Structure formats: C-alpha cells, structure tokens
C-alpha cells in the first residue's frame, strides 16, 4: 500500500536537504562538537557514525533546534536553523533517543497528539493516523498505553510518530539501539523505504554494520570532530585493512616496540595501561611478517600476536591515532 504524499518529484531527490557548516558546541570546558560540516541529500540515508559520546546526539539536537548552535550554521531544505527555528520544526521529524512518545497515551493517541500539534486538519489527520498504523503494523498494540510496550514496539511508534506530518527531512537518533536483531532488520527496511520515497534521512548510530547496510553516505565522527566521510564503499575500502595486534611480554618494551615497528615503515598505537600494540596493515601478510621480524631482531619479547579483521575501534585507531582510549 502506498501513499502518494510520501512520493516526491525526482528532482527533489537530488536536492541537498541538510547543510551543516562548521557546527560547534561546548558544554562548559568540554567541546562536544567541533567544526563539523556535512550535507545530507533527499532520497538518501546519511549516517553519522561514532562511539558513545562522539557528539552525534549534540549534532542532531542542534540541527533539530533542541540546542542552540554555538558557532557555524545549518540549514534544512534551505531554511536557516538558527534564524527560523519555527519554520525548521515544520519540515523535520525527530525520533530516537532525543525524542520519545507519551508513555501514558496509546499509540493512536500519541499520533493524534502530534498530528494536532502539526496543525494537520482533522479529516486528513484521522486518515493519516489510520494509514500509519496499518502501514507500520502498529494495529496489535495501537490502543494500548505506551508504557506497556516492548522495546521494539515503543521504538517503532517513536519512528512512526516522527512521520505524522510526512516531513521531507527525518532525523533518527540511534533508532535501533537496544533492539533485537529481527526488529532491527525490520526497522532498517522501513527506514530504507522512506529514503527511497524521497525523504532525507539523517541517522546516528554506533554500529558499523548499521551505517554500512543503511547509509548512502557516512560521516564518521569522534570527540566532536569529523574523521572521515564518504560512501559506504569508499570507507569500506579503507576499513578492509587487517590489523596486527601484538602483546609484548614486558610493558617496558612498549616504547621500544613502537620504535621498532616505525623502523619497518608501519604505524602503531599502544594501549598505555596495557601491553598491547595495534598495527593497521597496509601491506597485508608480508608487512605483518616484516613487523614481527623487526621486533624479533630488536630483541623485544612477544607474548602473543594475532591478525584480525578491523572493528569500528580500529577504524578510529587508524583515523585518529589515539590508541590510548581503550
């Protein structure tokens, strides 16, 4: 079943819907977001990927007018966020950890409430509520109070609530965190479909897999700073490098080991409290052999080593060379 209103003209899909330029925000001395710039296009999912505390939610809150923009500027479908917050609120939907539903109301009442607040005329609103309940299969629990819902039901209502006014731009702040794999996959296909119908979806996630599966373009941020951006394929090429993880037998050898690794032309990052070194490999198995031979020749005892596929952590290590955090 389709709703004509959710389909947009093909040229609208080429448009840049969200423009963020040099966004910054501090809380006290902590710089939550620093000079962040990116675009999000209609008909695409743009993923903001980063670990907890990376500044993703702060970014979403600034773009959705929940937090004032400290410096830099942003516009949503051409409307300046700082100067015309009310106008911006009319073209966006927000769901996820930055927003929620009324726990004491049923799904139907929640949708009715948000529809009224968007000033959707009554007849249209009732049709829209019925349509959304059917389209997103909320029927089983539509007339139960939201506080009785399972995590998945609640999250789905949360996302559906942000669709009540068919906004051209949709912000989803960690929409699938805490969901079981099945519910997550279902939600992914629903989000994908919204984008395919022309909505600009901006979603934050800490899951590499989610960004990979769902996003047309990915912005990797950490500690408030953009580390990389590009299509999923672009980034993956970078990420497909393997990582050699080395445990030295004696902590004191850590510095020496790093020097030795640098000596054979590889980079490494160390865990200052432990005995671990991570070496992102650019030259495959040959390079890992060179690193290990180098260490052996320099007389550094190795307790253990392993070659593994990169994780999101490794991406950050590779991009930020700040191995100390974990």
């Amino acid at each position, binding site marked *: 079943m389709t709703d004509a*209103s959710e389909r947009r003209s093909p040229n609208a899909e080429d448009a840049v819907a969200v423009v963020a330029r040099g966004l910054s925000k501090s809380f006290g001395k902590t710089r939550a977001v620093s000079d962040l710039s990116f675009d999000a296009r209609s008909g695409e999912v743009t993923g903001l990927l980063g670990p907890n505390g990376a500044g993703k939610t702060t970014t979403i809150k600034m773009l*959705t*007018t*929940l*937090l004032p923009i400290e410096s830099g500027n942003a516009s949503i*479908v051409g*409307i300046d966020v700082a100067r*015309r917050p*009310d*106008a911006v*609120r*009319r*073209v*966006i939907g*927000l769901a996820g*950890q*930055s*927003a*929620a*539903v*009324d*726990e*004491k*109301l049923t799904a139907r*009442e929640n949708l009715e*409430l*948000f529809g*009224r*607040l*968007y*000033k*959707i*005329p009554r007849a*249209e609103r009732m*049709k*829209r509520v019925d349509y959304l309940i059917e389209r997103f299969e909320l029927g089983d629990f539509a007339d139960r*109070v939201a506080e009785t819902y399972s995590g998945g039901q609640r999250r789905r209502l949360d996302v559906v*609530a942000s669709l009540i*006014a*068919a*906004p*051209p731009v949709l912000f989803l702040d960690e929409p699938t965190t805490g969901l079981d794999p099945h519910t997550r996959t279902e939600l992914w296909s629903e989000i994908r479909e919204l984008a395919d119908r022309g909505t600009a979806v901006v979603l934050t996630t800490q899951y590499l897999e989610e960004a990979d599966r769902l996003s047309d373009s990915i912005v990797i941020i950490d500690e408030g700073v953009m580390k990389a951006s590009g299509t999923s394929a672009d980034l993956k090429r970078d990420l497909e490098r393997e990582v050699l993880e080395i445990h030295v037998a004696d902590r004191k050898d850590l510095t020496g080991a790093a020097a030795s690794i640098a000596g054979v032309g590889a980079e490494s990052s160390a865990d200052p409290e432990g005995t671990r070194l991570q070496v992102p490999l650019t030259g495959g198995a040959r390079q890992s052999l060179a690193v290990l031979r180098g260490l052996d020749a320099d007389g550094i005892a190795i307790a253990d080593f392993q070659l593994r596929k990169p994780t999101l952590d490794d991406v950050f290590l590779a991009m930020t060379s700040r191995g100390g955090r974990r």
Partner: protein
Amino acid sequence: MTTTADLDRQEPTATQQIGWLVQDTVTMTWRDLIRTQRQPEMLSFAVVMGVFFLLLFYWVFGGAIAAGAGVDYIQYLVPGIFVITSLTGAQQTGTGLAADLSEGVTDRFRSLPMSQFAVIAGRTIADALRNVVGILLVAAVGYLLGFRFASVGGAIGAIALAVGVGYAFSWMNAAIAAQVRSAEMVGMLSMFWLFPLMLASTVFTPSEQMPGWLQAFAKWQPISVVGDAARDLSNGIPAGDAVAWSIIWIVALLVVFVPLAVAAYRRSR
C-alpha cells in the same frame, strides 16, 4: 494531503500564531486530562485532599476554633477549604511538570512546530479542571455536614475565585519546576510556600489570636484574601472589596509567574 513542506516558506502572521497558541493549548489540555485519568492514584490524591482537610479541621479543631468565627463553623470553613483544595492541586502542577520535563516526550514537543507556552498552559488548565472536581466534592461533603450556599451566583463566584488563585499558584509552581527540574525538589520546596500560606491564613480561623506581625501577613496574603472573598460570597455577605483584592492578587501572580515559567521552560533544555 498538504505536507508540511508547503507551509515552510512563509512566516505565519500574528493572527495565525495566536490561533495556533490557542489550538496547541487545547491540544495539550486534552493530553494532560487523559494523563490525569490514567494516573488514578494521583487523581484521587488531588481530589480527596480537600475532603480530608475539611473533615480534619471540622472534627478535630471545629469546636475550639468555632469561637470567634462569628458564624456557624461549617459556614466559615467550607469556602476556605475550596481555596486549600485548589492550592494543594496547584502543587501537583509542579511535580507533574518536573516529571514531564525528565521524559523524552518533552524533547519531541520542542522539535514540533507548536507554541511552547502551550506545554505549561495545557497542564495548568488540566489541573484547574481537576481542581473544580475536587472543590465540588468538598462542597458535596460540606452539604452533608450542614453547609449551605446563600445563592447560586455566590456559589459560582466562590468556586471561580478558588480555582483562579489555584491556577495562579500552578504557574508559580510550574516556574519552580522548570527551574529545578526534579519532582522531589519541587515537592520539598513546596513546604516553604504551601504550609505558611495554608496555616498563616484566615482560612481555618480568624487572625485575631495571631501576633500582630503575623496578623498583617495572615490578613493580606492571597490565600486569606481569596478565602475571605469566597466565604462572603458563599454566605451572601457583600464582598465587593474582598473580590476586587482577590482578582488583583490572581492577576498579579499570573503577571509575574507566567513569563517566569515560560522563560524557565525555554531555558531548561
């Protein structure tokens, strides 16, 4: 259907904005009334509170206090209890709003194209409507104990003033709640205004036995002023001045606390 995108370009006119403010306030009142119904423990507490005070003061202190009241004590007490019911109801505006602020749904409201004033206005109005129920219950129990209104007009006037002053204090408490953002803090802070206003007043007893300085406070503070007006109206005593002072108090409290509450709410993000 009209998508929101069609509305985004032009700025709304002032008339449109006022229309939306009214519409949003009605919507939020509807939402808060549903929430009130779904929390029966809160609802019954608020509604029964007045009856509790009525019975407590009537039976426990009634005989001792009656002397000096000049009228039958039940005639003295019941209109005052209307005001007390409304005042304790106003306290729940604060705890309710503080709880609301801690829920994510408030963030969603902030991201919607709605009047943020309506978030507080809806709650204060829903609480005022609940206070009407509480006051009617007090009147009904009062009737069983022998209380009588002198006239229908007087009854409506007395109840309207009691609800009005409670409404004004709802805004005061909303301002506190938006500032401290914790239901526990709001509850604790209410001790500092609720009890002095309730007990250092002419609601339960005339102020003649109080020390001079307290007498002045007890005579002029809003709860006494409105309590006196409600009592005169209920008993068919000419109440022009008391009613005028009551309205002045209610308006003054609203003029101070509505902007404070809205400003604190806007800051609390």
